[in-house]
């Protein structure tokens, strides 16, 4: 075939706008795709459709008042956000918290990590076209966690449970039985997912070797969390910079091999298993004491600045707080994991098909509330 002929065959590239309203953009992300038939030539992500000016808000809220806002950052893992923020403020104030509060925080954070990963897995399967069934199974399991949280703090999604210096409530009576029951139940369900999804041949064909994210590129893009680990980097803040009581607990860090979509999914599934293990241990080692604190309306830290990051289900959530000695933060920067994880997307999708972009986006598990803040 000579060149002039190929030129004739070549069709025009066409632009397609995916989002902000699209079933698989996980909220309000907009992707501008340059397509050649089904093939993606170029991809530009437009974010900011959920930019709620959290950082500006923080400058006008006291340290306590900002806690409910952190719920709405990464709204499927509110506990982890609460915890990250509260820990940052505690570091700013040099506060020590009781052991029981530490354990309760770990339990809450890990349970929420499971809930968050369940959504990630469910939506990933949904994006791959498994019509709602895995998603609804994941939500069914998640409802059990939500029930537990409902008992602990009285809300389903925005918990507002952590307090500067402790937690809002002690664990209610009988909750440990419920959690133990849930752990047992969840373990059997995770095995089910292995067969419904993980080793399903269509699932494998769709997600294996799709969206390869090499190790060095992942680090260079500051990708974090399960996405980084799937690329083969054994990096988990819970192990590498342990906070709370994570060093006393025994768990593994699941690591992927290739950094493809399937690995990212698999790492999440394994993390659910590990989190169950953590919750079980933490529940067993729960010390006596009073984890609650009286709500402090005004905290006035001395002028200083701190940066604290915690391991969120989506990656490393950092709070950079600068205080000027008043009751309001002078500046509060939220380093959100999804923001960095999403930045890598255009790199991954070039040369793939439209169906793959959906798969990669699902496997990256981004959340717009946190990306745009």
């Amino acid at each position, binding site marked *: 075939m000579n060149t002039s002929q190929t030129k004739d065959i070549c069709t025009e590239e066409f632009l397609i706008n995916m989002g902000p309203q699209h079933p698989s953009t996980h909220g309000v992300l907009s992707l501008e795709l340059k397509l050649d038939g089904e093939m993606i030539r170029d991809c530009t992500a437009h974010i900011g459709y959920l930019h709620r000016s959290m950082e500006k808000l923080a400058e006008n809220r006291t340290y306590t008042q900002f806690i409910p*806002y952190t719920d709405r950052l990464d709204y499927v893992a509110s506990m982890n956000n609460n915890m990250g923020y509260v820990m940052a403020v505690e570091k700013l104030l040099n506060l020590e918290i009781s052991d029981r509060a530490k354990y309760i925080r770990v339990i809450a954070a890990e349970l929420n990590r499971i809930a968050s990963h369940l959504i990630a897995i469910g939506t990933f399967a949904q994006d791959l076209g498994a019509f709602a069934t895995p998603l609804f199974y994941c939500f069914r399991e998640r409802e059990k966690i939500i029930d537990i949280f409902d008992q602990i703090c009285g809300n389903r999604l925005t918990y507002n449970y952590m307090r500067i210096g402790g937690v809002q409530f002690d664990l209610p009576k009988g909750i440990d039985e419920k959690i133990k029951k849930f752990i047992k139940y969840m373990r059997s369900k995770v095995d089910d997912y292995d067969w419904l999804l993980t080793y399903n041949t269509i699932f494998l064909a769709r997600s294996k070797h799709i969206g390869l994210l090499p190790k060095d590129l992942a680090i260079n893009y500051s990708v974090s969390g399960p996405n980084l680990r799937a690329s083969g980097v054994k990096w988990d803040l819970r192990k590498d910079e342990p906070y709370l009581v994570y060093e006393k607990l025994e768990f593994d860090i699941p690591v992927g091999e290739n950094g493809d979509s399937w690995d990212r999914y698999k790492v999440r599934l394994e993390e659910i298993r590990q989190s169950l293990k953590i919750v079980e241990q933490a529940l067993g080692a729960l010390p006596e004491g009073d984890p609650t604190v009286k709500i402090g309306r005004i905290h006035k830290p001395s002028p200083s600045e701190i940066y604290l990051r915690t391991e969120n289900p989506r990656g490393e959530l950092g709070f950079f707080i600068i205080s000027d000695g008043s009751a309001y933060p002078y500046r509060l920067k939220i380093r959100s994991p999804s923001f960095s994880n999403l930045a890598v997307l255009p790199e991954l999708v070039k040369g793939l098909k439209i169906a793959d972009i959906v798969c990669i986006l699902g496997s990256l598990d981004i959340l717009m509330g946190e990306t745009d803040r």
Partner: protein
Amino acid sequence: MVIIKIIKLSKDLVIGAWSLIKGLVITLKNCFIPAITLQYPAQKQPMTDRFRGLVDLHPEKCIICYQCVKICPVACLAIAHKQENNKKVISEFKYNMELCCFCGMCQQVCPTSAIYMNKIYEISVYDRDKTHINLLNPGKYIEWLNTSIK
């Protein structure tokens, strides 16, 4: 060469088919587990003890310390008081439900437990005006307490 390829392909096919069958078995199994659905209007789950519904008030307990107003992150509460016989008396306690973020901090900060959060959670309205509530009015939530819809 070709034979090896064909054998490999057929092996893959068999393994693939087996994985699909396993998936089918799991969905079929779930078909026979009783549905977990809560038949909502007929069945209602009780709210937990700590459930944060609408903000409510015991007016007699209120000492007008303004703590709740001060802590509210969204300024959805508004209090006014007047002096009567050298005593502070609440003249107005307004609650703007459409700003409230149901964080429960007002309830936690209240020294006399005057302000609390009730268990009402079915609160849909046709009209936005109904979300502005005078907490001193005893019949404020009557509409949502006895919902007529079935």
